[in-house]
């Protein structure tokens, strides 16, 4: 397979992924987390059975990597206000207690493993730093809000 044919296949796979899967995930933050979870941390390769069956494993891997980079860049381009908004919506979508969520994210810093490979270290540091600030903002809001009713 030559380079241009492969590139065309990857573009088709990216379109397929956007159309079938990512269209149901509107927020960049959710996309970033979803696409990062498709990556094997031992090899750095992405896996998606459906996409691999329609194309090839190699093309699917490249398409997922491209979409992951795209979601990451979209999040980097967000203002802090937008990032806090996306985090609030994400917390609501997980049906977790916001307090537990913020505590877990502050301790585990899961956003650090969601950074695509070959991202410039300054850009990666910038986004992780923005997450840290956004969590501090959310925590401050929760502290000033009345306590959650016990279920």
């Amino acid at each position, binding site marked *: 397979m030559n380079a241009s044919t492969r590139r065309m296949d990857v573009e088709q796979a990216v379109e397929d992924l956007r159309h079938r899967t990512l269209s149901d995930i509107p927020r960049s933050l959710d996309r970033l987390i979803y696409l990062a979870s498709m990556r094997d941390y031992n090899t*750095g*390769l*992405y896996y998606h059975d459906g996409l691999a069956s329609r194309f090839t494993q*190699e093309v699917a*891997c*490249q398409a997922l*990597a491209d979409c992951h980079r795209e979601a990451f860049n979209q999040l*980097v*381009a967000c*203002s*802090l*206000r937008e990032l806090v908004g996306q985090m609030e919506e994400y917390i609501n979508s997980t049906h977790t207690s916001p307090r537990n969520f913020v505590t877990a994210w502050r301790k585990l810093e899961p956003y650090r493993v969601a950074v695509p*490979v*070959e991202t*410039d*270290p*300054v*850009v990666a*540091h*910038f986004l992780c*730093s*923005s997450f*840290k*600030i956004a969590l*501090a*903002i959310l925590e*401050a809001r929760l502290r000033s809000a009345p306590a959650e009713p016990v279920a």
Partner: protein
Amino acid sequence: MIQLIFFLSIGVLLFASLFFLARRNPRPEGSSGALIEARQALVALQAGLLPIELVQRIFAEQDWEYVRSESPAAVRELFMEERKKVALLWVDQVRAQIRSLSRFHRGSARSYARLNPRLEMELALGFAGLTFACRVLRVIVYVGGPYAAPRMVGAMANAASRTCKISEQSLAFLNAAQLGMLGGRSTGTAAL
């Protein structure tokens, strides 16, 4: 006896200077390693550090306005601390990549006959100016915080982008396929 000591001292000095000169640059100038390093520096600057969107995001005052209007003092403090770290990291990385590119041009100016001397002079001045500006900006950000010199940040990013373009132009004679081959050898799989 004094003459012997004198000549021996000169001999030792010459030997020491030869030793240091030989150690100073173990990599032959114009080698593929130097070429890859220069290309990586250029890519890191043009694609990673200098895009206007990124510079605007790092130094965006609207984020500060948002934090200042909605958050308590502890969060405001954390915000300033974090943005200062990022700003200093950005300045340091820009300076490091500029120095790497400058090293390559200093070396290649002697190795490649096809380089344009006028462009190389222009680049040398550009690199010197940028290195100095980075040092000054670092001090300003360190002392005054990330929003202390917004105009200087913009001017420096523009100047660095211009210098990168001249550098790219200056190295245009290097075969793109050769660069791709060298780069491909060093960076591994595309998905990674």
